[in-house]
C-alpha cells in the first residue's frame, strides 16, 4: 500500500505493520514536541491533528500486527497495488490535501474549535443522510427529505414559543411540555413516510415519483399551516430556551476550570444515531432484508422476504430520522420558516453517493456515509474559511460529486 515504487518488491507483513506502528509512534512524539515547543499563536492546535493522524497510523499498524492469520501473506509494492490504493482512497487523499492547503493558507484553521464547528454542522446532515441511505439501498431515492425537515421545524417551533413573544403562532396556547410538540412534529413526518412507503410498496411506484409527489404535498401543507392567521407566513421566532437547548447546548464547557469551548450536544446525538442505524443495518433481519430487496427484489420475494413490510419500514424509518433532524435544526437556529430544509435531500444523496452508496441498490456502508457527509462539510467550511465565493463553492461541490462517483464506478468495472 501507499508506495509508488516502480519495481515490484515485497516485504513481510510483520515488517510492514512495524513500519506503520513506528511512524505512528514518531507522529505522536512529534505532536508532543509541537504542543510544547511550537509557538501557539502561529500553529494553534496543530499538535492535536498530528496526534490524531499518529494514533490512526499506529492503530493500523498494531491491528495488522494482531491479525496473525494474515502474517503469511507478504505485502507487495507494485504499480497495480498503488493504483488500487489510490482509487480506493482518492476522495480521502484529496480531502487531506485540501485540509493541509487551507491550514497553510490560513493557520487559524488549525484551531480545535474549527474541528468541533465542522462536526456540529455535519451532525444534522448526517442524520438526514442516514435516513436517505435506506431508500438508496433499495435502488430508490427520497426527494421529500428536505421538505420533511422543514415540516418538523415549523411544527415544533410553532408550538414552542415563549409566552411573552409578540407574534405567537398560537396566541392562547398554554406552555406545553417540550416533548409533546417534538413528538407531534416527528409523527407528522412519519405519517408522510407511511404515504411514501405505501405508494412504493403497494403500487410498485418508482420512489422518485412517489416521493416527488409527497415532497410537493408536504411543502403545500406546510405552507398552508405556516400561512394560518395570525402568523400569515411570518418567520417563527421567540422559541422557548428549554427547546433551543437541544440544539445549542454545549457539554464539557470550561471543564475543570479550563477554557474549553465545549462540545455541541448535536455531535453525540448524531453519533448515537449512527451506532443505532449501523446496528439496524448490520445486525437485524430487517437490515439484511434491505440489502436483499436492493440486490434483487424478485429473489427476495421468492426467499420469503416480506417486501411490502420492508419497504414500508424503510420509508417510515427515514421519515422518522428527517423529523428528528428537522427538530434539531429548528432548535439549533431557534426559529423556522416553511423554506427550511429546502434541497437537503440532494446534499444528503450526494454525500451518500460520494461515500460509496450505489444508486443501483444493495451496496453501501455506514462508514462511507459518515465520510461522505464529513467531506462535504469540510469542503464547504474550509472554502468559506479562506474566502472562496459561494458560487465557486457550488462549482467545486459539483465537480467533487462527478469525480468521486466516476472513481467509485471504476472500482466495480472489471476488465
Amino acid at each position, binding site marked *: 500500500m501507499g508506495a509508488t515504487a516502480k519495481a515490484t518488491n515485497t516485504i513481510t507483513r510483520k515488517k510492514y505493520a512495524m513500519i506503520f506502528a513506528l511512524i505512528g509512534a514518531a507522529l505522536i512524539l512529534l505532536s508532543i514536541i509541537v504542543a510544547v515547543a511550537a509557538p501557539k499563536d502561529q500553529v494553534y492546535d496543530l499538535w492535536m491533528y498530528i496526534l490524531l493522524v499518529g494514533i490512526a497510523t499506529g492503530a493500523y499498524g498494531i491491528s495488522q500486527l494482531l491479525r496473525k492469520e494474515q502474517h503469511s501473506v507478504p505485502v507487495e509494492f507494485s504499480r497495480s497495488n498503488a493504483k488500487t490504493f489510490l482509487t480506493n482512497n482518492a476522495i480521502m487523499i484529496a480531502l487531506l490535501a485540501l485540509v493541509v492547503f487551507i491550514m497553510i493558507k490560513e493557520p487559524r484553521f488549525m484551531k480545535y474549535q474549527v474541528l468541533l464547528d465542522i462536526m456540529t454542522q455535519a451532525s444534522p446532515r448526517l442524520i438526514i443522510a442516514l435516513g436517505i441511505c435506506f431508500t438508496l439501498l433499495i435502488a430508490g431515492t427520497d426527494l421529500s427529505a428536505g421538505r420533511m425537515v422543514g415540516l418538523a421545524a415549523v411544527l415544533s417551533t410553532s408550538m414552542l414559543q415563549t409566552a411573552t413573544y409578540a407574534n405567537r403562532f398560537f396566541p392562547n396556547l398554554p406552555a406545553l411540555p417540550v416533548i409533546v410538540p417534538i413528538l407531534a412534529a416527528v409523527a407528522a413526518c412519519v405519517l408522510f413516510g407511511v404515504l411514501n412507503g405505501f405508494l412504493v410498496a403497494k403500487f410498485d411506484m418508482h420512489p422518485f415519483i412517489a416521493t416527488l409527489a409527497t415532497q410537493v404535498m408536504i411543502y403545500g401543507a406546510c405552507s398552508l399551516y405556516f400561512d394560518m392567521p395570525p402568523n400569515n407566513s411570518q418567520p417563527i421566532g421567540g422559541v422557548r430556551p428549554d427547546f433551543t437547548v437541544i440544539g445549542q447546548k454545549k457539554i464539557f464547557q470550561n471543564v475543570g476550570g479550563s477554557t474549553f469551548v465545549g462540545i455541541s450536544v448535536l455531535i453525540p446525538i448524531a453519533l448515537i444515531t449512527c451506532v443505532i442505524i449501523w446496528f439496524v443495518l448490520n445486525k437485524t*433481519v430487517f437490515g*439484511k432484508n434491505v*440489502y436483499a430487496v436492493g*440486490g*434483487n427484489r424478485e429473489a427476495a*420475494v421468492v426467499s420469503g422476504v416480506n417486501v411490502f413490510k420492508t419497504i414500508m419500514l424503510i420509508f417510515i424509518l427515514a421519515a422518522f430520522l428527517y423529523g428528528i433532524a428537522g427538530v434539531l435544526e429548528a432548535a439549533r437556529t431557534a426559529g423556522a420558516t416553511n423554506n427550511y430544509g429546502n434541497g437537503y435531500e440532494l446534499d444528503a444523496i450526494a454525500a451518500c453517493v460520494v461515500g460509496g452508496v450505489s444508486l443501483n441498490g444493495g451496496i453501501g456502508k455506514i462508514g462511507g456515509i459518515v465520510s461522505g457527509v464529513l467531506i462535504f462539510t469540510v469542503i464547504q467550511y474550509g472554502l468559506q474559511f479562506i474566502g472562496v465565493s459561494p458560487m465557486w463553492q457550488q462549482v467545486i461541490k459539483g465537480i467533487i460529486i462527478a469525480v468521486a462517483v466516476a472513481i467509485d464506478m471504476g472500482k466495480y468495472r472489471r476488465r
Partner: protein
Amino acid sequence: MGEYVLEMNNITKEFPGVKALDNVSLKVRPGSVHALMGENGAGKSTLMKCLFGIYAEDSGEIILDGKPQKINSSKQALDLGISMIHQELHPIRFRPVMENIWLGRFPKRGPAVDHKAMYEKTKELFKEVDLDVDPKTLAGNLSASTLQLVEIAKAVSYNSKIIIMDEPTSSLTENETAHLFKIIKKLQSEGRAIIYISHKMEEILKISDEVTIMRDGQCVGTWPANELTTDLIISRMVGRDMTNRFPPKEYTPGTDVVFKVDDICSPLPRSFQHVSFEVHRGEIFGIGGLVGAQRTETVEAIFGLRQIASGTIYKDGKEIKIKSPRDAMKHGFALLTEERRATGIFPTLSVLDNTVIATENEGKLVHHSIINNFARKKAATDSNASMRTKTPSMLEQMQNLSGGNQQKVLIARWLLTDPDILFLDEPTRGIDVGAKYEIYTIMQQLIKEGKSVIMISSEMPELLGMSDRVMVMCEGRVTGIVNAGECDSVKVMELATKFM
C-alpha cells in the same frame, strides 16, 4: 490463408484471487464446428469473452487469418468478423425485434433510420433461418426459445467468419435444436467456423468436428469428435472416470400421499388449467413437457408467486391456502426457481447472506429479529459444505461464483429451511456433469430422509433417470402421469406434443 481461421495462443487471464485462464490455446479451422467443453468455471466463457473483446487477456496472442490482433471491444470483434450468441439473452424488451437485431447499425436514409429497409432486411434474414416471426413484434413478447433463434439470426446477419455460440440450446426444445443444427450445417457449408459451447454430450458428438476440453482454466486437449465418446469426454472434463450419470436408487417411495393438487386453474386462460396430481412421501415426482407447457407457472402458482383462480391444495391430508411464498414456506415448501439470476441470487451480497436469507425470514437463527452472527455463519458453512460449494470464503460476493456454485448455494439456502416438499425447477440447467451428479445425490439423500421432491426438467435422460413418476404437460394441461421405469422418451414426447 493458413490452416486455421483463428488461433488463440497461450491466453492467460487473472481475476483478483483466481487464475481464470492459464496458458490456454485454441485453434479453429474454417468451415468447422469446434466444440468447447468443460465443467462450470473451467474458463470456457472467459476465453470466449477474451476473444469477443469483453475481457482483456493478461498475456497471449490472438491470430485471425494469420494476422495477430488485439481485440479491445465487442465492436472491434464484430468488425473483424467474430460474432457471439451469449448464454444469457438481454433483449430490449419494449422495442421491436428488428431494432434489436440491427441496433448500432440501423439502415439509414440520409440522417434518418430507414424502417422500411430494416423491415425488409429482417424478413429476408428470418427467411434464411426459417423463422416465422413478424419483425415488428416486441422482443419482450417472444418466448425464450424464439428469442434464442432471433439471436442466432442476428449472429448470422453480421456475416461473420466465426460465430461463437454459448449454450445456444439451453432453452430450446428438441425440434428447435434440430432446426438450429440445420442452420449450423448451412453456415458451415458457407465456410464459416462455429465455436460451440454446450454441456449436452449428445449434441456435441452429433454436430461438432473437433472438441477442445478445458478443466480448471487449463486446456486438456483437442480431439476430432469421431474419436470421442460421452464417457471419454466426461472423464477428461472432470479428470476422473464417471461410469454412472445418475446415483443408484436405494429407496422406494412410500404409499402415503403428502401433497395433493386438485384441479387448480390459472385465471389466465392460456396458462395452466385443471391440473391435478398427488405426490407420495419420499418420491421424486418429475414434471416434463416442452418449453411453454406452463410447468413453471404451475409450480410458481402453488408456491404463491402467481394467482390460482380455482382448485384446492392439500398437504398431509389437510386443505391449505397459499397466498405468498411466505405462506408456502410456513407449510414446509421450498422452490428453486428456473431463472437463477432473475429470481434466485443476490449478486452483490455475500454467499453467507445468500444462504441464510430464507431461514432468517422464517424467524430461525435469530433472536427477536436480531441476527446471530455465530449461528448464521455456522449454518451457512455447514449447509454449503454438504453441497460442496466452491467459494474462497463465506463472505465472497455471490456474483463472483460460477453458475454451478451459485446453484449449489441456492439449494443450500432451501435445505437450510428444512422443507418437506422441495420444488426444483430445472435444477441442473447450465451446470457441469460433476455438479449435476452432486445435485442428484442430494436429491436421493432428501427422499431417503422422507422428504418429497418435485422436479421440472427439460432433459429427458434426467427426467426419466431421476424421477419415480413423471407428469407430462402440454399447453397448460396434464396429458399423462406415468411410471418412469415403464416409460421411454418417445412416450413422454408423445404426451408432450398431444395438443400440437
